[in-house]
């Protein structure tokens, strides 16, 4: 069974990576690329409670729950890509199970309570903690760009060798037409995301599955649901009490008497069955069923409830709150800011897919207040919203960005450009430029040129083409801001003025 479990883990991790890489232009597969996020019951609960709506993409999460009730935390042990990553780290480094920090274990339940309290008061707090969102985000913002950077650097180096050039272009093209982006992509916030991910990986060396044991709120949720599981560990009477099982248990679920188990902590990894020297341990459906009692002190539960309430309060009353005017440009199809924040889990699936298209979306820092941290925002100086693209709307697991068809998207206003006449060359320097107009993608251009007579300092007259933004045509895609050829801050800037948000 241990071997089967390992195969399952590898298969699911590869599948996860495959879906991740498939989230790029053009999305060819029929399977939703955000399948793992849709399978996540924590995201499902939190989003639906917070949004006060049934979100039908989460039908997958329902299946996972159904599976959990009789079989326990099979998801953690067999499917979760973060769990597999941690197991892989331990496998490669031959890391041992490590010390037991039993008391810390209840932290994850408290985290869960904290998060769900947040959701009840319509504050989506799970984004920081959910393992699937966290993994997707780390892949998007750090690991993916790093891989691209290294491969590009390598190609750049080898490109100096003349006769290799053709082959290199071919190889690089193969990469960029399959899964890597056409162009190098850089992200804001990537350092922080990497630090968190590294911390989780490094905690593996304190004790195995340190994150899963002590912090993972998804694990906690599944533990609650596996309370009545029928797949349990049993030890036969002829146990020699060698204690090996207790030492190798990565979830620290086996008690000191080696016979009894904290069933809800068990992730059905079958290590103890496989490595039991006298082969007296089994995990099966037989035997006694006793409901598990959670180690939750009332005082702590109250503490985390209060913490949840306080967090919601701080987030919602922060100066740049969700109701004030911010400068954030949201992707097309984004819901009304309130609804958007209720739903967004910062999985960054939209940012990932955008990086293979217009490279518009970046995680926000504090521009929209603390509560909007790491939500997707358009940074038009760096990238722009591709006119013929609806990819970000297609990959959102919580429907924070509503699915738009191409014709609707082309007419969806996400902002409005304005010209900074103190920086725009035809305006302040009387010099032709028109790059913004050239790139404007609307069939009738939203940037119009008017030929105007200007008088230079030396008294000579000239006709210069000056750009004007047509408010009735501009959709705020931001390509003008991206391509504006002056250095530094663009002379044409997109603000969210007149943006159209989705609402049911």
């Amino acid at each position, binding site marked *: 069974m241990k071997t089967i479990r390992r195969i399952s883990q590898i298969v699911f991790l590869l599948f996860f990576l495959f879906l991740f890489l498939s989230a790029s232009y*053009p999305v060819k597969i029929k399977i939703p690329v955000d399948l793992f996020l849709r399978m996540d019951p924590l995201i499902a609960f939190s989003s639906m409670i917070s949004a006060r709506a049934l979100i039908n993409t989460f039908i997958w999460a329902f299946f996972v729950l159904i599976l959990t009730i009789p079989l326990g935390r099979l998801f953690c042990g067999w499917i979760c890509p973060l769990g597999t990553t941690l197991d892989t780290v331990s496998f490669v480094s031959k890391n041992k199970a490590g010390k037991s920090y039993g008391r810390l274990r209840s932290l994850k339940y408290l985290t869960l309570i904290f998060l769900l309290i947040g959701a009840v008061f319509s504050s989506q707090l799970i984004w920081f903690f959910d393992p699937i969102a966290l993994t997707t985000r780390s892949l998007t913002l750090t690991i993916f760009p790093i891989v691209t950077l290294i491969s590009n650097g390598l190609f750049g180096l080898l490109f100096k060798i003349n006769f290799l050039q053709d082959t290199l272009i071919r190889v*690089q*093209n193969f990469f960029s037409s399959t899964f890597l982006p056409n162009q190098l992509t850089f992200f804001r916030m990537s350092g922080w995301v990497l630090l968190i991910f590294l911390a989780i990986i490094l905690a593996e060396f304190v004790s195995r599955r340190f994150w899963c044991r002590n912090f993972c709120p998804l694990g906690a949720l599944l533990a609650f649901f596996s309370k009545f599981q029928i797949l349990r560990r049993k030890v036969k009477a002829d146990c020699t009490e060698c204690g090996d099982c207790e030492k190798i248990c990565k979830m620290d679920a086996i008690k000191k008497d080696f016979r009894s188990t904290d069933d809800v902590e068990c992730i059905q990894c079958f290590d103890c069955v496989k490595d039991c020297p006298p082969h007296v341990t089994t995990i099966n459906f037989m035997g006694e069923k006793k409901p598990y009692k959670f180690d939750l002190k009332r005082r702590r539960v109250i503490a985390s409830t209060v913490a949840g309430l306080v967090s919601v309060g701080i987030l919602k009353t922060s100066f740049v709150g969700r109701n004030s005017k911010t400068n954030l440009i949201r992707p097309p199809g984004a819901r009304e800011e309130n609804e958007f924040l209720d739903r967004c889990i910062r999985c960054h699936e939209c940012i990932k897919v955008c990086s293979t298209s217009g490279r518009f979306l970046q995680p926000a820092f504090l521009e929209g207040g603390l509560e909007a941290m790491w939500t997707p925002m358009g940074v038009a100086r760096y990238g722009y919203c591709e006119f013929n693209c609806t990819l970000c709307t297609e990959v959102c697991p919580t429907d924070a960005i509503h699915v738009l068809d191409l014709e609707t998207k082309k007419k969806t206003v996400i902002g409005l450009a304005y010209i900074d006449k103190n920086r725009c060359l035809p305006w302040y320097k009387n010099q032709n430029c028109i790059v913004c107009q050239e790139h404007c*993608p*609307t069939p009738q251009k939203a940037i119009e040129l008017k030929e105007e007579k200007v008088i230079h300092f030396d008294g000579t007259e000239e006709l210069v083409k000056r750009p004007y933004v047509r408010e009735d045509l501009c959709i705020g895609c931001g390509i003008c801001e991206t*391509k504006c050829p002056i250095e530094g801050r663009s002379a044409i800037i997109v603000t969210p003025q007149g943006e159209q948000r989705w609402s049911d």
Partner: protein
Amino acid sequence: MKKKEEKILGGTITRRDFIKSSVGTAFILSLSNFGLAEAFGRPIEEESLPDLAVVSNGTPALMTRKVMELLGGMKKFVTKGDIVVVKPNIGWDRNPEQAADTNPEVVAEVVKMCLECGARKVKVFDRTCNTPSRCYENSGIKKAASEAGAEVSYVVDTGFSMMKFPQGEVLKKWYMYKPAIEADVLINVPIAKHHGLPKLTLGMKNLMGIMGGDRGQIHWNIDDNLADLANFVKPELTILDAYRILVRNGPQGGSLKDVIEKKTIIAGKNIATVDAYGATLFGMKPTDLGYVVKANKFGLGEIDLNKVNIKKVAL
């Protein structure tokens, strides 16, 4: 009949040369194959070849083939073993009907002709304005050109290097794409379109697709810059696709109302001459285009169309 001719001309040339020389040069001349005639050391009468060929009223592929036939065949430009770069306009995420990118059938036909002339490799690429993969896919060029046998690739950042323009008056150096500059033959295959600043984008403007860096800045002095660029790159051949032309809201278009079916292909050795003729498609005079006038001064082609030997054929 035509197909048979090409079959004879493609492939192993040296042996065929010998056979044909004994059969009679007249026959070869009747096939307009001056490339072969040259191989025999026969002097070519320049008068008999037009400076500019214009074909209209056909399918894109047929017209492309015909226009090259009028110019003396692709053999005149491509010889066996050459590495050829075919540089279409793939700048925008638009489909062929929207006339923002070169017609894929034209590109494919050019590729085929090059391969028939024994080109070792035909490369097709363009530095796009929108996301490369989107432009390559939606323009239809990726599919058409690779099916025709070309090596279609995205432009890679590492392929650019700063090059000096020795004769540059205004533009003295820029990042240029090495595979394009180092090719044996560069065939420029632009589409004729309206453009906000230089009025039209034709052959010379299309060369910006092999430039690196921030190309926006080229627009600040576009006429002089384009002339310097063309003078440096000097493509061996320019085939202007005017099957559909975009007359408003260029260079990107998007609305079919702005597209006119001209069903015309123009080709010539001299880039300024091709662009000069291109201006007339839009009801302009060649002298309306500043960069064409400047290029003429650099000796990149006659732009007084009355002085140009033009051969026009309507299919």
